[in-house]
């Protein structure tokens, strides 16, 4: 009994629900045999991984869906042992180098080196094996595909290592890089790849998908409710599907104005923001710090916290203050990325907001009084 989001995941380029033009492009790209390194990027929940799997399947057939988890171990220059689990089929290997933390450079260098070098021997056998089924592809099978996920969280070191490796083993392997944003990928890598942007689905597309899914489940989803879910999901299809299912579990048949279940962390974050608005005092700042710690403990990414706070806080500010706060939030988010301990920056932001908001309130009070008299 898997969740809908996994149950109804399309597994071929033909079956994709949206961005069909792009799917056609990809198919053509694959069909002509060779293709460059790919850099697939787009927001979370837009279907990047789904497209990659479809692409692989298009390329290698259903064999690609037989996945296994492998553990690979590496030794860092400082003799530290690293264990990285990879997902692999016979045709490709998927790895998330950032699992190794600051040693991701080692992972990239070692993994790509071993894969690219050792695959030569195997490829012949595979080609033969494959050849019986996919003759027209046989010439391209000497390549092994390496899928690297979360490329944007790679350290600069690792990215530079990657850039070198990409050129060096171009003859034996192809890379598919997957990330949320290219802004953190160094230009050198971006220029070596064919960028494929997967935009987030529109609200309508999400509604269509939800409707289709419910139909398959034999459920009736009111259009209005579907719309609300789509909007609430923030154009994240995965989230929309999960919400939809959660709502189904909670109450069926659906009603138009059914409550949408929000994850606990979102509620917690909103409550935190509300507390900041409620009162601006050192004591409250201290309490907010505790709540921020709680969020961080639960591995809520600090940029998500920042965004969530900003969204809630600005909803309580008027025009000019909104701009000011947003600008500040951007600055603090930036410094957060440059820093180490995100709590410092979040707290600094909260403190700043409190100071500004307090001033704003008191000025408002004075002005109000002036108006009154």
């Amino acid at each position, binding site marked *: *009994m*898997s*969740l809908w989001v*996994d149950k109804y*995941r399309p597994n071929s380029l033909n079956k994709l629900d949206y961005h069909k033009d792009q799917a056609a492009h990809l198919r053509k790209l694959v069909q002509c045999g060779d293709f460059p390194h790919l850099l697939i990027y787009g927001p*979370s*929940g837009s279907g990047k*991984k789904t497209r990659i*799997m479809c692409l692989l399947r298009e390329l290698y057939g259903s064999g690609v869906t*037989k*996945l*296994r*988890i492998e553990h690979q171990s590496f030794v860092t220059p400082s003799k530290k042992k690293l264990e990285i*689990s990879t*997902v692999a089929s016979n045709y490709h290997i998927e790895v*998330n180098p950032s*699992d190794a933390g600051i040693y991701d450079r080692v992972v990239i260098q070692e993994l790509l080196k071993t894969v690219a070098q050792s695959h030569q021997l195997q490829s012949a056998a595979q080609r033969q094996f494959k050849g019986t089924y996919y003759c027209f592809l046989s010439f391209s099978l000497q390549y092994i595909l390496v899928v690297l*996920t979360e490329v944007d969280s790679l350290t600069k070191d690792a990215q530079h290592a990657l850039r070198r490796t990409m050129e060096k083993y171009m003859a034996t392997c192809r890379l598919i890089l997957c990330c949320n944003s290219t802004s953190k990928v160094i230009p050198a890598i971006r220029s070596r790849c064919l960028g494929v942007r997967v935009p987030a689905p529109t609200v309508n597309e999400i509604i269509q998908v939800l409707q289709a899914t419910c139909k398959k489940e034999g459920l009736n989803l009111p259009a209005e409710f579907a719309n609300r879910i789509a909007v609430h999901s923030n154009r*994240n299809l*995965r989230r929309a599907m*999960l919400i939809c*299912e*959660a709502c189904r579990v909670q109450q069926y048949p659906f009603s138009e104005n059914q409550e949408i*279940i929000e*994850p*606990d*962390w979102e*509620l*917690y974050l909103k409550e935190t923001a509300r507390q900041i608005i409620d009162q*601006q*005092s*050192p004591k409250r*700042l*201290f309490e907010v*710090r505790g709540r921020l*710690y*709680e969020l*961080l*403990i*639960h*591995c*809520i*990414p600090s940029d998500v916290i920042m965004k969530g706070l900003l969204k809630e806080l600005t909803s309580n500010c008027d025009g000019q203050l909104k701009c000011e706060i947003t600008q500040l939030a951007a600055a*603090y988010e930036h*410094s957060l990325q*440059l*820093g*180490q*301990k995100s*709590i*410092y*920056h979040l*707290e*600094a932001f909260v*403190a*700043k907001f*409190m*100071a500004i908001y307090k*001033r704003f309130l*008191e000025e408002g009070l004075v002005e109000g009084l002036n108006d009154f008299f």
Partner: protein
Amino acid sequence: MNPTANLTSVTSTCAKLHCGPNKKQPLDNGLPASNHTDDLDSLHLLAPLLGQQYPTLDNNVLQDIRKFFGGSSSAKTKSAPSKSPDVPKPQKKTPKKQSLPLSRKNEKSEDKNLNKSKCNKGKTVVKKKNRDKNGNIEESNTSPRAEDEELKKKHNTKKRKSSIKQDDEDDDDFDDKAISSPEIRTSSKKKQKRQLYALIKVYIFLDSEDEEPLPKKRAKRRKKEYHYSSDEENKQASIEEAFQHVKTSAKQKSKSAVKCSSPSPKKTVNIVDFFGTSPVQRVERKTSIGNHKELSHTAQQSNGDDFELHDDEDFNLTLHQLDEIEQDEAKKVTTPKVETSSSLSSKLSGKVKESHRVQETPEKPPKKVTSQTGTPSKGVTSTNKTPSKTVISQVTTTPASAMTSSNKKVSPGKSAMKQTSTKTSPDKPEAKKLSFKSYLSREGPRLLGSKEVPQGGENCLEGLTFVITGVLESFERDEIKSTIERYGGKVTGSVSKKTGYLIVGRDAGENGVLDLIRTLPGKKSKYEIAAEKESKSTPGRKTLSRSSQIKKTPSKITSSGSPEAKTPTALQHKDLAGSFSGTPDVEHSPQTVSEGKTSADETLLWVDKYKPNSLKQIIGQQGDKSNAKKLLHWLKTWHRNIASGKKPAFNRFGDDGAGHRAALLSGPPGVGKTTTTQLVCKEAGFSFVELNASDTRSKKSLKEDVAESLNNHSLAGIFGLHLLELVGLIKNTKIPIICMCNDRNHPKIRTLANYCFDLRFQRPRVEQIKSAMMSLAYKEGIKIPPPALNDMILASNQDIRQIIHNLSMWSVTDKNMSFGQVKTDAAKAKKDLKLGPFDVVRKVFTSGEETAHMTINDKSDLFFHDYSFGPLFVQENYISVQPSEARGNIQKHLQLLSCAADSIAAGDRVDRLVRGHGQWGLLPVQAVFASVIPGDMMRGYLGGQIQFPSWLGKNSSRNKNDRILQELKSHMRLRISCDKRGLNLEYLPHLRHSLTLPLVKEGGDGVPDVIKCLDEYNLIKEDFDSILEVSQWPNSENIMSMVESKTKAAFTRTYNKEAHLTPYAVGSSTKKTRRGGVNADSLELGLEEGEENQEIVESEEEQDLSIDNMIKVNRFF
């Protein structure tokens, strides 16, 4: 001071003295205060004068005074004591040339000054000063003339009882003063202020050249005289507060003056001259009043007019009455003070006396006199004749006072303070507020570093006490303070009766000090002198203590023929002490007793050499409530208490430790724990065995050692010991045990402390150590300036042992340690204190004396005490600080918080560069961002406990959760497409629901669904738990608590029964431990034992299966 103007200076000072009061009167009347700076010196004069008027009024009193003079101060009075007609007699006896000339001179110069002042009145300060200088110059030119006139006047006085005449003059002064003083009290404060200004102005005008000595001299003399009379008659014993202060200052003067050894015998005569019969008063008075009038007119005063009109006798009478009332009031105040001062002085007197003796040869004073005034040597002879040298010593103040230069503000005492304070701040509350505001907004030194500190003689300021107030023009306060201390002066925080100089800022106040340094002759430190004396003195005399000497002095006075021998005032004591300098009987400091030892002990370290031999000698342990006494009491009553089976009281206060079998002494090193213990044992008659943890390290050997020993033993340095063993010993000991440690709060010691009588040794105060060190230096013949010793003590953090070592080391090269040298050495030897992060963060944030003077380097040094923990502590605690800058304004507070937070965030960015990129050179930058700036922003009150950084704990639990997520993700990887973050944010909340809701809603029936779901996502039972753990929020209830325990058990059972295929190879070792975890879980859920066995079997099966599984998976390809 011009050496050339010796003569003139004397004359001019006299003149000053005389015209001071004259001018003062108009001012008292309310001359509008010009913006002239106040010269507190004037008060020196005024105060005594004020007190002096009474004798002149009352004939009885006068007689008494005469009596007094006859007895104590001068030879003349001796001959004719207590009779008013005889007053002139002494003058005849005493060289008239001395006394009369002076007074004449005074008159003369007074007139001149008056003229000058008339001219100058109403003009700006600067101009006045200039003129004054000119006037002085003129005076010096005219001085011969003045002398002539003096001579003439001498003759005149002879004819018409010159002494009386002079008394009259003085009386005039007094009257003026009397007038002024009630005025000051009664008139409105503003008026008073103005008057004060005026007074001050006049005095400045007069004193602007370097000729203050006489006024002071006079003042002192007056004071003394007055004092005598007061003591004797109890009628006029009371004087204004100011008077007291003058006394003290004069005392100081005399001290220093004595050292300079320039006693001028003229004084003796003068004193007598000041007192005369009243009739003549009137005559003189009129003239003075005339002067007043003129002055006041020229000054164009509005307030003073009515006062001037009242210069008739009636008015004066009323004024006198007023004053008498005041006197009565003051009497009560003064008498005790006098006593205290006497005791103080008695303490001091020993040293001073010695100096007296050394330098005060009987021939010297006459020489001085001749050189200065050109008076015939008769005066010398007369002084020699006089048995008491008190007068001489008084007279000697001249040089000292002369040294006080024009710009220096000399404050005689509280009255001076009063004046200044009234000047700066009107007493009304609003005015106070205003002045406080102006105080807050006052600027710093404007001309910092513009003046060079002159090179002065060694110890030239010794014995002088300074009080600094206001903002000095070209020095920071610390700077001038250290300069003064460098030359032996003393700087105190507030004005007391010892205060000699008040340095008033925001004008050229500090010039005075510099001038002092420039002009005062170098002299030997009194300590040095004492030491020298010491070495010279013969052993036979050693027995006399200082106190006994002082007690004896009065009797000696009587023997010398003075009827007023009983003189309890401090001044007298000192002077008397001085007077006995010629006598062979010399008192000795108690330290000399040990002198004999030194040769024998030369090989010993000083620490051992000067080890205290009795409990009383331990520094800082003399008090009744001292640890030593407590310990002694505890030890003495030990056997009784133990025998009676007394239980230890848990009352922290007033606990005498009865019932404790052991005592725990804790305290920093070098405060005398071991010494105390040893001496206490000696005192209590115990012998002791000393064990040290560094000798006896193993549990076994300790047991053996202790078991062997039958006596008391002290275990010094118990760190590293087996504390449990020790506690066991303590519980059953038959003998007292004393334990010692440095860190009372060490976790190891805490266990021990529960069984012990807890005695904490504090560091002795600086003064306590200082006195002991001075005596040590004494014995070793080291010359060390006391302020430098202060520095040394502070540098070693009051570690007595280290101070002694340092002394011993530094004195090897030079026994005469200079201030500068010691200061630099002390700075070098500064104990490098390692502060813990808790102390550091407290120091970062708290405001106060300790942190007020920290430079930016000091502040950033705080960061470097522990640069990895420091920022964390700062970040943890900065919110709980109450910044003093905010002053309760919440908005300001928030702004400061925000600034601090910004800075901390910036510090974090630097931290990343430092640690992530190895740019360790940026550490100082981080120090500024992470510690200095937040500290500066939030500096204030850090209330409550300092929190340990929570970041560490939070971070580790975050990392744990991260690991869990990582594992979950790797397990679910084949099924889901998202990354760790998406898993956490999106999947888990829903997975949590879909995994638990069936259990909640359907109970046991929901179990298969849940297990199916787990299998679908390749999750194992532990993942189920960790999903619940990670997705548990404080704002949501624990969903598993809603699941019945029966369902839980069923779930576990069912899950374990089935084989679950996972695509990942779970490490067998980790799996086993996890299985253990499951077992524990199942036990919790109440599984029977049998099932558990089954489980284990199953787990083995499953492992096989999982291996199979891998094979199976491989089979796909």
